[in-house]
């Protein structure tokens, strides 16, 4: 138990490290489950995925998916670029193209593993896309203001109006959408993070629950412990 939570609060360290706690569902006493079938938990019910637990997202190398993604991904990425760059003359635009380019990253992550993709695609790239997109959109909008016009008054830009619209779509919207979608993907893949954040309350409550589950003399708190685990 203690090795899955490195650097946690001292309450967890007080536990005997040799006793690996069985899942609470194994207890014959609990009758809290409202569903018909008893829930079958895939893994430990600890609600705090740390760095080791993050790698527990099931990943198996597939000889079908990996070559398929290798072939499809360049075309899909090019299609996303096409949709983005040709939004002026054909359906689409920055939003759709950015979403397609982010979906290519999702595809790669599903084929080659989310953690490998996370390391390949540095956080700097994602943040630069999102922040740079917002700044580019605001900057393109503010250039006409600096020249004495209105916000996003394209005819005051030093480029033709059409290229003003396209630059907003390409450098602004597509970058924001692709960056934020990729960020949401990796955020959801990692889930809650306990290190260096304000999750002490939940952690201590769960440790109390774990201790209570170990103690057979406390049936009431045992029930609450099961309820807490079932909520997550």
């Amino acid at each position, binding site marked *: 138990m203690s090795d899955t939570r490195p650097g946690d609060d001292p309450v967890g360290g007080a536990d005997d490290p040799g006793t690996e706690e069985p899942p609470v569902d194994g207890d014959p006493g609990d009758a809290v489950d409202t569903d018909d079938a008893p829930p079958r938990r895939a893994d430990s019910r600890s609600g705090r995925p740390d760095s080791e637990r993050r790698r527990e997202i099931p990943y198996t190398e597939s000889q079908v998916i990996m070559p398929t993604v290798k072939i499809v991904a360049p075309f899909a990425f090019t299609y996303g670029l096409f*949709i983005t760059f040709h939004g002026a003359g*054909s359906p689409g*635009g920055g939003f759709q193209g950015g979403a397609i380019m982010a979906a290519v990253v999702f595809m790669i992550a599903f084929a080659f593993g989310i953690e490998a993709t996370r390391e390949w695609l540095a*956080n700097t*790239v994602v943040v630069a896309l999102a922040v740079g997109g917002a700044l580019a959109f605001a900057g393109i909008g503010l250039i006409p203001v600096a020249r004495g016009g209105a916000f996003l008054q394209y005819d005051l830009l030093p480029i033709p*109006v059409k290229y003003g619209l396209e630059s907003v*779509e390409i450098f602004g919207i597509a970058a924001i959408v692709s960056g934020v979608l990729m960020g*949401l993907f990796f955020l959801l893949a990692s889930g809650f993070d306990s290190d260096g954040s304000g999750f002490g309350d939940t952690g201590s409550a769960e440790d109390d629950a774990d201790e209570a589950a170990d103690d057979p003399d406390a049936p009431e708190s045992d029930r609450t412990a099961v309820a807490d685990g079932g909520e997550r």
Partner: protein
Amino acid sequence: MIGATSVGSSATAGAAPAVAQVTAVEGGLLAFVVLTALATALARDVLAAVIVFGAYSLGMAALYTFYRAPDVALTEAAISAGVTTVLLLLTLAKTTRIDHDVALESVNLPAVGAVGLLFGGLLLTMGDIPAVGSPDAAVWSNPEVSQWYLRESYAQTGVENSVMAVLAAFRGFDTFGEAVVVFAGGIAALIVLHREVFA
């Protein structure tokens, strides 16, 4: 599975010209969308519901394409069928999978009655809605708004896609607000998940 079996039967049902001017493709797509929506609502297994919901979004994207709204169709396919399905699956992977004996959720009869009443009420308004693609529809034929944008978007912006001209130029400030909302959504996810880095 349910949606897949429904495609064949609905395609043959749509081939019969029961309703005026509903082609086989349109009828098949409508039936596919309705059946996948029902399956999404009724599936007891959440994973099955998510996958059928992705099929529903794909059907909606095809329907939007059929109704010649390719911009909306692209958004529906990319966001709803692609990104949302992936994010929901990713979330499901972090939760507990529960074995179910029955495939479908039990139907709540009062809820069905309420939905049926609402559906019947909406159906009563169908008579006043213009036909699909009608040139007399007010949203198309009014000279002040729709025709003005269609006439002026190329003249004022030099962009052939008038949807993009409206979004990026005529309603550019709104689009800026929407883009900032997307950006703020990413920041909010960082805050909610107690993290400081995206990847």
